[in-house]
């Protein structure tokens, strides 16, 4: 049995199990912790697939930065109240699970029909990752995909400004609909602004 086979069959069940655990946990903090486990298993798969740079980025950006942000917001909002189990749409849950299984089955069939058991070139690390994955990746990124790379920098600036504007607390002029709701419901009723 090849080593990457063993790695795959050890980490794939952990990956799927932690993904399911994200859904079934009642507590949002536990969901976040299982999501971190899932991100780490994906990082291991990137390593197996010959992408050590993305392995590092996955751990630093996802398991590090993004999950810290998630946990920070969870603690800001407070999670001690239980999620209500009232279903607004009857039968939504079974239908959702059924459709999810259908989606997975469809992709299975498509993958089976299209790529089958293809393995890709065996000399990936020597030819494609020549000089190291980070160097090879930057060669492609800064030659062929330089414009998309620059556009993402604009996107990041816009996102940072948007987050600051959205998070800012300030007195806001009441819209007409809100003023009417306030008059109908009286002070204390309606939506708090």
């Amino acid at each position: 049995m090849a080593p990457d086979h063993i790695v795959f069959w050890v980490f794939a069940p952990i990956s799927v199990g932690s993904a399911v655990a994200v859904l079934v946990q009642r507590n949002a903090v536990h969901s976040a912790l299982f999501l971190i486990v899932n991100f780490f298993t994906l990082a291991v798969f990137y390593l197996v697939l010959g992408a050590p740079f993305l392995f590092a980025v996955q751990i630093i950006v996802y398991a590090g930065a993004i999950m810290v942000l998630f946990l920070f917001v969870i603690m800001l909002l407070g999670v001690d109240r239980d999620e209500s189990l009232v279903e607004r749409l009857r039968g939504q849950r079974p239908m959702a699970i059924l459709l999810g299984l259908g989606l997975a089955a469809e992709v299975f069939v498509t993958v089976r029909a299209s790529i089958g058991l293809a393995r890709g070139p065996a000399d990936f690390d020597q030819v494609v990752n020549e000089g190291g994955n980070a160097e090879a990746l930057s060669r492609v990124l800064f030659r062929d995909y330089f414009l998309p790379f620059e556009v993402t920098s604009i996107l990041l600036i816009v996102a940072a400004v948007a987050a600051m504007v959205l998070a800012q607390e300030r007195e806001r002029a009441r819209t007409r609909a809100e003023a009417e709701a306030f008059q109908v419901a009286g002070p204390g009723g309606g939506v708090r602004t």
Partner: protein
Amino acid sequence: MRTPISYFVALSAILFAIGTVGVLVRKNALVIFMSVELQLNAVNLALVAFSRMHGNLTGQVLAFLSMVVAAAEVVVGLAIIVNVYRRLHSANVDDASLLRW
């Protein structure tokens, strides 16, 4: 590497389906958001796997760019969730129904 690429793509499909079910089933906005992250990561895994199969690095560049976009998306999305929570005092998506007919 002896593992067929389709194993990784199939795993990515399973993770994507789990993320989809999470978005449809859960009511907590934060958990829904985490499920979206799960879906994004599943797609990234498929991209890296296809990069391996075709023997070039375009898929890895795409996965890298999608990670950047996901980071920006998380920042804005969490800010929106915090804002909604301030208004409604609830992170339950059923409570944010002002635009419902």
